């Protein structure tokens, strides 16, 4: 029995990784969970220069989930390369760097800067709903998706994951656009844009007015989109959106995801990713699944 998965030539020991933005660069959660157990760590988005992010409050709880509008605060690629990559290199796990930008050249600058760094995969975040420029603007139009994908692919030395926004009419169309642009892998879903109002103060709860919704509440929507994307393209998919348990993760795998990311669940259980890995192994044992690949897309 084995849980190895191959994503565009990169072999992960298991299909479980952390969703960008929920796990920093691993240093904080590394105190609570053995990073060597993870298939990969996906870092918080990093830009060419430091970003201050949005004013607070940046988070709010909602039924079965949360809203966030961090605004991609990050220390910039220099600090990231100096501090976070060496930190992650200490562990036997793959390194996936989430790349964000406000303009095309922002993205490309980070991608080029990472060319000679020992990172395994790049995840291009064209779907953050919480920044005014860039982010989601690149992710809601199929032509823009194909265009930015092609630009990134021209510069990237590592295989490229395009992270898709769920705030679209037709996720299959977006998936096909990324594939047409040359994406090696897709990841979805990013957060769904949501809002919360404080009726007593008569004001938005988040300083940014809207925020990205994540957590168990969005799982059915994420699962549907992963299924639709898997029907639309041939490249592998990293599924995410509300995964807390191994059962959740297996749903995504059966729907067509080759790997899964654990996001908001880290805030609920700091060892959520390891629990998911162990649960997947138990499921495979129970049902005599030799190779986790047998499960990918098995429900259609």
């Amino acid at each position, binding site marked *: 029995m084995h849980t190895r998965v191959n994503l565009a030539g990169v072999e992960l020991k298991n299909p479980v990784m952390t969703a960008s*933005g*929920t*796990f*920093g660069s691993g240093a*904080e*959660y590394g*105190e*609570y*969970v*053995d990073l060597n157990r993870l298939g990969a760590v996906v870092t*918080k988005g990093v830009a060419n220069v*430091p*970003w*201050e*992010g949005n004013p*607070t*409050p*940046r*988070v*709010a*709880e909602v*039924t*079965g*989930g*949360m809203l*966030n509008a*961090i605004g991609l*605060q*990050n*220390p*910039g690629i220099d*600090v990231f390369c100096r501090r976070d990559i060496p930190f992650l290199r200490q562990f036997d796990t793959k390194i996936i760097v989430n790349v964000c930008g406000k303009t095309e050249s922002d993205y490309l600058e980070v991608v080029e800067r990472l060319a000679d760094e020992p990172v395994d995969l790049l995840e291009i975040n064209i779907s953050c709903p919480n920044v005014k420029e860039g982010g989601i603007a690149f992710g809601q139009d199929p032509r823009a998706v194909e265009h930015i994908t092609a630009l990134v692919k021209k510069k990237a030395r590592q295989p490229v994951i395009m992270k898709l926004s769920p705030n679209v009419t037709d996720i299959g169309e977006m998936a096909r656009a990324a594939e047409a642009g040359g994406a090696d892998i897709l990841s979805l879903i990013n957060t769904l844009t949501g809002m919360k109002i404080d009726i007593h103060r008569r004001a938005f709860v988040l300083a940014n007015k809207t925020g990205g919704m994540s*957590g*168990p509440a969005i799982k059915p929507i994420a699962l549907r989109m992963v299924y639709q994307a898997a029907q639309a393209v041939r490249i592998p998919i990293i599924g995410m959106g509300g995964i807390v348990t191994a059962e959740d993760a297996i749903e995504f795998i059966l729907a067509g995801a080759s790997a899964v990311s654990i996001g*908001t669940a*880290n*805030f*609920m*259980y*700091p*060892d959520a990713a390891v629990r998911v890995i162990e649960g997947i192994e138990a499921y495979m044992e129970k049902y005599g699944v030799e190779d986790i690949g047998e499960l990918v897309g098995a429900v259609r």
Partner: protein
Amino acid sequence: MKRQIEAEILSQRRLAPEIYDMRIEGGEAAKDARPGQFVTLYCEDGARILPRPISICEREGTRFRLVYRIAGAGTREFASYGAGKKLRMMGPLGNGFPLLNKRAILIGGGIGIPPMLELMKELPGEKTAVLGYRDRELFLRDEFAAYGPVATATEDGSAGVRGNVLDAIREQGVEGEVIYACGPTPMLRAVKEYALEKGLLCYLSLEERMACGIGACLACVCRSKETDEHTGVHNKRVCKDGPVFEAREVEL
């Protein structure tokens, strides 16, 4: 390796309207707790996914005393539980107050009062507590009195000085070399101003909406005067770099 534990509630009682006093078994990790740190408690209700940070009021051995206000459905859930119930918990978290051997003024406002009690116990030097309440529900006040003088302010004037904690300090001539404070942001802002004016060292315990509670998600930042070493920008993480900051470090 640190971990989230299943912590058993040892006792719980109501101290005042909407204010509860819970004793909970914190395990080995509790022994390292410092005044001003906090724990995060997790709801059992699946609709409420985020941890609730609760300041540590007292710590005895491996046991925490948590005094908290019902601020929503999550804390209401906690308040419904009695002895024997187990809740997921992490902590102690955050940095805590530095224990300086100086004449200290400990300022607590409302639900910012509880964390000052452990500090009052542990500070080695001369110390005065200044506690600001809404009304005559003077929860914990008598317990502070065991460790030093206490000045009281109430918004409605029903006990102590009518007004806020600074009114009490001025009216009762409270003096010291260092201020430690926890309470609502307007209070902290006024305390900071007072400390700068008097040239006093001042430590403030801040509050901000959190998600992870351990410094990973960057939800609970505050504005820092200098570029923060970790974040690379003018933001510090309240849960990890704080909740206690030297007043001049942060913009309120």
